[in-house]
């Protein structure tokens, strides 16, 4: 299992802030996890459609689609940041 976190507009459009999911089988990457999320329904496939401007963090470090995942990881999805 891994923990998924969603922030800001992504949290709102997905109506989800946190969930636990099983890792994709094989040598799982962020890309495989995203494929799994997109297959849920139209809302999820749209939120993570290719070309959508969102950011990924794995265990609180910026990551990308090729980042490898393992059991227990915390994977966060969020829009470009706007602090300051």
């Amino acid at each position: 299992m891994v923990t998924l976190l969603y922030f800001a507009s992504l949290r709102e459009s997905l109506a989800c802030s946190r969930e636990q999911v099983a890792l994709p089988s094989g040598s799982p990457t962020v890309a495989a996890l995203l494929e799994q999320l997109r297959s849920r329904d139209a809302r999820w496939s749209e939120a993570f459609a290719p070309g959508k401007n969102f950011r990924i963090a794995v265990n609180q470090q910026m990551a990308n689609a090729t980042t490898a995942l393992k059991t227990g990881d915390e994977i966060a999805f969020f829009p470009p940041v706007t602090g300051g």
Partner: protein
Amino acid sequence: MPIVRVQEADFDTGRELDALTGGRKDVGALASFTGLVRDANDGSSVSAMTLEHYPGMTEKALEEICREAHQRWRLLDTLVIHRVGALKPGDRIVLVGVTSAHRGDAFAACEFIMDYLKTRAPFWKKEATPQGERWVEARSSDDTAANRWRK
């Protein structure tokens, strides 16, 4: 040394900056930046703002930005205080303070920290406008500012 705080409460700019320099006699330069909530943005009036963040990652990201500043310039101390939660126009959002022997290092590092904070620290702003609430869009000018520092 980096000092990083994420908090709902307001901060006292004078007290925080005095603490950075207080008692030291090797500080020649203190550069600081305060970001505040404006009552207008992108053509709309703004009556309130909510700042969301990613607890845990936020502090790590800010510490990493400060450490990178310490690697790039000769600095004594760096300070970042960033507020989260409900804010209103005129409220302070963020304070960055940098001390050094010389002003060039302090100015550059202070601006670097703000530019990186704007593009790398997980904060998100939601504004209340007469047309309803809206998430603030990231600005390409912030990416441009951050990219200036690429080696």
